């Protein structure tokens, strides 16, 4: 077929065209594919296809000791290794009844909220990138993210694969200087959020592209198990930090931002507002943290052998409800190890959100879900 023939190849009125978006496409943020059927520019069917990064993470974890799964959890949502660690150690702590010292709980809150901040900043940067604001806004986000990763590096030795938490506490203590550095950084963050929010709020093109697009109704969001900022953008007040009050989250004052349209714009605004709440939590945690041990002295890390039984532990990760379900048969390695991946479950209703929309809107609707393929595929 000549090039001319290819160019004139198009679907006539009423004809359906099949387009495979991905797996190698900049808008899919990883190796993810969508089988899309189009009538003209309108989406009439969309099926997500994934598994390209599948390495059977769960099987690997079932073959090792409880301790050896922690570095693997870093690689689930590889932008948020700290919160992945927390979800897993929380489940082990429930399974084996392990207490956590207060200082370790505060350090966990500090690193988790820093993680949430950099995740959300990156996501908003990517939204602007997806809509054609190439490069610059994303670099604004990455500028702040780098500073947070610097802090993670000086604390844990690694910028992204932190491998920092342990059941019964955290691996290394933080110094007073480190806490001071965090304090200085979060003093500057509100100004960054203001600047970033102005890019969203005051941009007419952006509002035209995102408002009323990719609407997720409240009832469907609940029934489909959507969690995290995406759920709250649809107006459901459900934040596991408030519901379960795990760790020391009952000691902090913060709001749970809620949207009322459930569209792409609301989903991004949720991230902006949650960044502000994270800063509030960080300020309180830095104020209240006291000296003390960082590990439960009785916990055996290497030789942990929980009694036969099972436990489900969950946290509010930046993407939604991150849970770990563990079954112990009384041996050194988990009989069953299961991750509840929020990114994957939030994809369940991708088709519902995209039907009837233009194909260009699929890109920003997918972007607003906030997926990381390391977690979707496991």
């Amino acid at each position: 077929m000549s090039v001319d023939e290819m160019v004139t190849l198009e679907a006539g009125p009423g004809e359906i065209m099949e387009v495979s978006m991905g797996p190698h496409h900049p808008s899919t943020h990883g190796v993810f594919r969508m089988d899309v059927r189009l009538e003209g520019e309108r989406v009439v069917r969309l099926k997500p296809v994934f598994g390209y990064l599948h390495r059977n993470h769960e099987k690997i974890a079932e073959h090792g000791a409880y301790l050896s799964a922690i570095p693997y959890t870093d690689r689930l949502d590889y932008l948020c290794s700290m919160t992945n660690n927390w979800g897993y150690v929380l489940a082990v702590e429930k399974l084996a009844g392990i207490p956590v010292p207060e200082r370790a709980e505060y350090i966990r809150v500090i690193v988790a909220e820093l993680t949430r901040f950099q995740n959300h900043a990156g996501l908003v940067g990517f939204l602007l990138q997806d809509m054609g604001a190439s490069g610059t806004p994303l670099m604004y986000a990455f500028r702040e993210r780098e500073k947070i990763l610097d802090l993670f590096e000086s604390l844990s030795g690694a910028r992204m694969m932190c491998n920092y938490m342990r059941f019964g506490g955290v691996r290394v203590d933080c110094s007073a200087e480190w806490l001071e550095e965090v304090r200085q950084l979060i003093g500057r963050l509100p100004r960054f959020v203001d600047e970033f929010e102005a890019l969203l709020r005051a941009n007419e093109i952006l509002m035209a592209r995102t408002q009323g697009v990719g609407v997720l109704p409240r009832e469907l969001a609940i029934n489909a198990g959507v969690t995290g900022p995406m759920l709250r953008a649809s107006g459901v007040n459900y934040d596991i930090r408030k519901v379960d009050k795990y760790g020391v989250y009952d000691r902090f004052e913060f709001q749970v931002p809620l949207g009322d349209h459930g569209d792409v714009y609301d989903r991004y605004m949720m991230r902006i507002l949650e960044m502000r709440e994270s800063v509030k939590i960080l300020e309180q945690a830095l104020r209240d943290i006291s000296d003390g041990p960082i590990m439960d002295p009785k916990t055996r890390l290497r030789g942990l052998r929980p009694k036969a039984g099972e436990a489900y532990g969950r946290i509010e990760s930046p993407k939604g409800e991150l849970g770990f379900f563990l079954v112990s048969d009384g041996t050194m390695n988990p009989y069953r190890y299961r991750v509840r991946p929020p990114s994957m479950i939030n994809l369940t209703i991708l088709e519902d959100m995209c039907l009837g929309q233009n194909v260009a809107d699929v890109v920003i609707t997918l972007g607003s879900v906030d997926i990381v393929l390391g977690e979707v595929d496991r």
Partner: protein
Amino acid sequence: MSPLPAVEELKALIEAGVTGAAVAVVPNSSPSGQHSLLLDREHARAVAEFLRDHAELRLDYCSLVTGVDWLDRETTEKIKVKKVVEGPDGSQQETEVEETRKTKTPGYLEAVYHLFSMEKKHGPVILRLRTANRADDGHVPSLTPVWRSAEFQEREAFDLYGIVFDGHPDLRRILMWDGFVDYPMRKDYVPPADDALAGVHA
């Protein structure tokens, strides 16, 4: 957070609310104290709808769906049996003899559902469904018509464990590719040798 009834009360509630449903409590001795309810396959769908729509419970959110593989078990026990034996003098005597007995318990695949309530902010209530065995009857009813969130997760349990969810709208492999045979998360899965794929794409 409104309090959730204990598992025994939940069992009574379900059995009163869904006629014919057989519910068994599966205790959990872990410090987590998360006990679960084993449902019979025939009434599972009705029980799920009952739990979702019950005014006090309102378990509107199915968070986690997963498979667990329990292998066939062979237990050996030594028991003492009384046997009549002929004594050295020819008389019938009753003595105790030790015998080894092997009992086979067939394994099963289990689908586990963790339910929460977004409205009442309580949970989890844990449901379990079991297949008849691991070989030829790996069926359980799908709960996707009750909770959409089960759609991808049931597909995953089908893909990796081979549990067939009857009534699922779109039961296909999800993480492994379509031509793949076998179920990699099963406990007796043997991975192919490293060179098994050599030459396939040649």
